């Protein structure tokens, strides 16, 4: 068990190229399950591979436990890794695959056997210890790959998109099993994924990365409720947050947001932080599930705080509907109750509770209110 510290870590693949990982600093606590999430090419896998020792570190330090590991080869770092492709040795049986890391560490045969059997029992793969990987299903291979990491009793687990080769149903099931497994073995885990659902459901904390830069590191709920910038706001949540560029104007001592087709009063709670943007354009963000049809709003909403829209498309999903709304050139997505019985072309009014509205600086894209 150990904590992992990134201290100003960078990765450059060539002089003059944009860094794959740029000055990454964060601390992963002992026993924590940290998810690194971001779109492909954001540097999350590179960051993890630097922890494993599979990529050289161009700048900064990586610390595992109390050791700076920059110059240690992978075998001396005491990390175990699960690969997206599983990377099970095809010429070895499941038993040999599990035992191989122990053999390399010169662990006596008796103990090797015991530990392999223990891991196999934990993952329910005892039945096919003598099979070769090609005789296993995708889910079984995935378990063997996990087993190969577990037998090591390593300080840190690294998992590089371990679920992405499984079908949707198995992925959900394995997700839950991974969480339970982490509860049991309590090993510090860094988990890389591009799937924000996986990130939200599995991580103690989530590090969101984009273009090699850490955007935000926080608990899933805080990321969702208080995104630090437009990228995080758009990346976390599905369907993703609506963004509308609005022009801020004052009238009668109140602040109004003007967009093509509508004018909406900005809640007083947000108004104060937005004063300095008066007369300028900011980006308004609101999540589809926070756009509510007027009749369903619980709090007293002043009439000038709602947005009149026309229903463009309704997608039925059974327990909920996705409604695509338009007003002028503005389009919004809302997630609503099917009981509303909305139809195409219908004109409605929607609004969001004041603390559900997010405002972003149009240039820096940082949250401003």
């Amino acid at each position, binding site marked *: 068990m150990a904590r992992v510290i990134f201290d100003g870590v960078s990765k450059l693949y060539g002089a003059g190229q944009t860094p794959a990982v740029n000055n990454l600093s964060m601390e992963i606590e002992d026993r924590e399950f940290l998810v690194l999430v971001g779109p492909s090419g954001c540097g999350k896998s590179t960051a993890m591979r630097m922890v494993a020792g*599979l990529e050289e570190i161009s700048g900064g330090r990586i610390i595992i436990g109390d050791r700076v590991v920059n110059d240690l080869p992978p075998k001396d770092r005491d990390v175990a890794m699960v690969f997206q492709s599983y990377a099970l*040795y095809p010429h070895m049986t499941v038993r040999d695959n599990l035992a191989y890391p122990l053999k390399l560490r010169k662990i006596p045969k008796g103990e090797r056997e015991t530990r392999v059997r223990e891991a196999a029992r934990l993952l329910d793969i005892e039945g096919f210890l003598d099979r070769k990987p090609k005789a296993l299903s995708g889910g079984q291979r995935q378990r063997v790959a996990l087993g190969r990491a577990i037998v090591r009793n390593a300080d840190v687990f690294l998992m590089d998109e371990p679920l992405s080769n499984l079908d949707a149903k198995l992925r959900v099931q394995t997700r839950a099993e991974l969480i339970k497994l982490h509860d049991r073995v309590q090993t510090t885990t860094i988990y890389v994924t591009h799937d924000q659902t996986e990130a939200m459901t599995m991580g103690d904390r989530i590090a969101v990365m984009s273009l090699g830069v850490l955007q935000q590191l926080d608990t899933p709920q805080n990321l969702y409720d208080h995104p630090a910038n437009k990228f995080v706001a758009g990346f976390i949540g599905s369907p993703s947050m609506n963004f509308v560029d609005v022009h801020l104007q004052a009238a009668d001592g109140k602040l109004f947001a003007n967009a093509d087709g509508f004018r909406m009063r900005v809640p007083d709670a947000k108004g104060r932080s937005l004063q300095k943007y008066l007369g300028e354009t900011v980006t308004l963000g609101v999540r589809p599930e926070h756009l509510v049809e007027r009749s369903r709003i619980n709090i007293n909403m002043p009439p000038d705080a709602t947005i009149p829209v026309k229903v463009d498309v309704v997608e039925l999903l059974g327990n909920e509907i996705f409604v695509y709304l338009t007003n002028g050139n503005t389009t919004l997505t809302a997630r609503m109750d099917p009981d509303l019985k909305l139809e195409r072309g219908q004109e409605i009014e929607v609004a969001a509770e004041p603390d559900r509205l997010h405002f972003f600086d149009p240039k820096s894209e940082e949250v401003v209110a």
Partner: protein
Amino acid sequence: MGDLNRLVRGGRGMSLAPNYVILILLLIFSIGPLAIMAFNSLKSRTEIGDNPLGLPRGLVWSNYSRAWDVGNFSTTMVNSGLLVAGTVIGVLLLGGMAAYSLAKLDLPGAGALMLFLLVVSSLPIHLFLVPLFVLWRELGLLNSFHGLILIYIALNAPLAIFLLRSYMVQLPRDFEDAARVDGAGEWQIFAKIVVPLSWPGFLTVGLVVALSVWNEFLLATVFLQDESKFTVVTSYQNFATRFSRDWSLTSAASVMMIVPIIVIFLIFQRRFIEGMTQGGMKG
């Protein structure tokens, strides 16, 4: 249903007829000379003169035992075997390691080295036969198996490196990375992961090299002059007198020469073809 199947299969057979005709023609071309050689190996010396292409009238099995003695095969077979074994082991070991480092270790200048190998291996041996002979004489490597094996290894290594490298390049990098994280060093990754995963490639290279060494004539004649060191191919000279050649003995000797090759090929042929056609392996 059965009728339908038969109909369909019959139709398929008909449409494939031209293919079979071509294949049979090719078969006659490739098997024909071998068959004639086998027939002639069982004819008497006089019969070959009358009837060089037909079936033998009587079976003269003694040609084989005589050819064995004249060709001194009990010695030359062993000599050829030693050369083949030494060369194959050397080429696979050195070529395998070179291929691994070129395929997987991101060496600076790997591309230039590959180009160099390609250019050099396309030069004919006759160009440097004389300087090599002089050099080997100075080094005291003439008339020794290890001296000739060294040359054979050098000649065959480029092909081995090319074939093995292209095989290893296709192995997913995750296997090595997994082994590295599991605690393997570079040598263990090579020996325990990469070699077992590319063994069809090694088998192919081994067979190709073994064939070329077994059949090699020029270098064996030049570098092994002591009669006790003759190979199967150089012992061919024993069947010629100054003005004539005993064709029935020559044919019998030829059959005995190619038998080991055919046996090995039949054993490994499936793997051999896999190695030639299929690049990588899926986990």
